[in-house]
């Protein structure tokens, strides 16, 4: 059965705008990026709280920090590499070190700008942003979770980075409050723990069904908060299954796979198979074909998981 889908960017922009109707401290920072981030309505309704800075992300992050220092809650959303790589020092010093309540949102994350090439891919954002102490990192996995994660992010006084994708994503979960730093088990199993985050959730859930048909009972953990990671849940599951597989639209180094590997090396001694994009400049092409190429569709994930544990 085909699941109903929604555009992650529009979902995100609408969620922020809805909350901003109640909270006048929320302001938008745009680097010629607000319209494509779902902030069309916000701009119309609250033009005084919508700050356009042009294509100038370093200045935009610094100015967002200044706005936050006066009690505003700036939300700056643009194409993921341009809000992470380009202004990284501003992210570290102005947001992280100064501990300012700025929300940076990288859209078109991973390889979702598939045909635009490596300049527009974001395959290291989890890795570099988690190096900044005190930044919460979110990668919500379906439209309902985007909405609840936006609410939790805006209610938290801490700086945050959120990554969302581009293509419409299916509704997977019922609406429920987002708990920062908490994962949850969405399928119980005993043979292997699969930890997923972000845009690949639907494929991982499907892969769980394929694995079951092959006699493998996977326990699937949904992990929409990358930092702080829910180490307790990972430990509990891994001590049962004795194997972990991570799945993310990110380099296999540095992101969710990296975090879980670090945890395992220090506390669990459980083998970790990391699924994602190899550490290279990814090929370009249609998004779904690209995911299949890197074995990140349901079939590919199931095959890799099976190979890893047999």
């Amino acid at each position, binding site marked *: 059965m085909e699941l109903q889908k929604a555009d992650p960017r529009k979902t995100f922009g609408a969620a922020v705008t809805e909350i901003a109707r109640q909270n006048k401290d929320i*302001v938008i920072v745009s680097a010629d990026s607000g319209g494509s981030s779902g902030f069309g309505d916000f701009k119309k309704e609250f033009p*005084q*709280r919508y*700050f356009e*800075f*042009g294509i*100038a992300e*370093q*200045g*935009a*992050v*610094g*100015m*967002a*920090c*200044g*706005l*936050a*220092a*006066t*009690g*505003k809650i*700036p939300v700056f959303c643009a194409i993921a590499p341009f809000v992470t790589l380009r202004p990284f*020092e*501003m992210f570290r*010093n*102005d947001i992280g*070190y*100064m*501990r300012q309540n700025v929300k940076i949102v990288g859209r078109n994350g991973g390889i979702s700008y598939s045909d635009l090439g490596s300049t527009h891919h974001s395959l290291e954002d989890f890795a570099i942003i988690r190096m900044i102490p005190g930044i919460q990192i979110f990668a919500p996995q379906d439209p309902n979770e985007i909405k609840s994660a936006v609410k939790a992010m805006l209610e938290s006084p801490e700086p945050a980075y959120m990554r969302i994708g581009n293509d419409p994503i299916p509704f997977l979960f019922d609406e429920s409050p987002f708990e920062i730093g908490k994962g949850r088990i969405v399928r119980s199993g005993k043979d292997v723990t699969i930890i997923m985050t972000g845009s690949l959730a639907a494929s991982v859930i499907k892969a769980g069904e394929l694995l079951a048909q092959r006699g493998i009972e996977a326990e699937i953990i949904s992990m929409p908060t990358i930092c702080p990671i829910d180490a307790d849940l990972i430990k509990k599951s891994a001590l049962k299954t004795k194997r972990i597989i991570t799945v993310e639209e990110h380099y296999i180094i540095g992101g969710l796979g990296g975090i879980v590997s670090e945890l395992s090396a220090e506390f669990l001694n459980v083998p970790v198979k990391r699924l994602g994009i190899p550490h290279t400049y990814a090929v370009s092409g249609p998004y779904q074909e690209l995911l299949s190429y890197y074995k990140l569709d349901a079939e590919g994930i199931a095959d890799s998981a099976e190979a890893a544990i047999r």
Partner: protein
Amino acid sequence: MAADIKKLESIAANCRRKVVRMVRSGGSGHLGGALSCLDILTVLFFHTLNHQPSNPKYPDRDRFILSAGHKCMALYSVLCQAGYFEEERLDTYGKLGTALPGHPNMRKLPGIEANTGALGHGLSIAAGMALGLRLDGKASRVFTVLGDGELPEGSNWEAIAAAAHHKIDNLIAFIDDNGLQISGKTTEIMNLEPISDRFKSFGWAVKDIDGNNIKEIVGVLENLPFEKGKPSVIIARTVKAKGLSFAEGKLSYHYWKPSKEELEQAERELDEAIKAKAV
């Protein structure tokens, strides 16, 4: 007004002495820039800024950001002189766990508004603050001091464009133009002259002054903004290491690790300056 100028000059002399006190504590420090911008900071904190040292987070205060964070000894000295913290803390400079690190940290010391140090950050932060204060309908202004050496940072020009575009006229920037940076003359490293014209062409209101002349600094700050609807910038021509006879205008005093004799000479000179300027 004349008495005020004399008083400010006296305060500046005391603040210069505090800078050297910190160098004695730490054994070294970014002396040259601290002393070149010190008169500007003195006028700001003792004449211009609406602030309350006993209530550093006073919501309606004017803000000050030292974009050239390595000149922090100037900021620490005026904050101390103004009563933000007790003098004894100056003697922790350069020591383990100090609240006065080599670049300022707002989480450690009252009166610090931003963690600067990496160059090219302060102006963007200041512009954002000014926007936020304006949005709240406050009369607060945001002042910042940049070094001339940090002007080539591209992020500065992003903020310079944005401040004019958004007509942020509660933003006032000083360029502490001492003409020297770590490798030589700023005009030889990366020539941005005529600085005034560059700012004008970006839509700022510009004034040029002698940035070590208290009277001129006071004068330029009498009527702000210079033009309604435009950010203001003051190109302050200054002298590196101003106030120390043996160091003035010399590149080698950008970062100072004094000998015992040099340190004692500096202390003697500045003690004498305090006496000479006493009101």
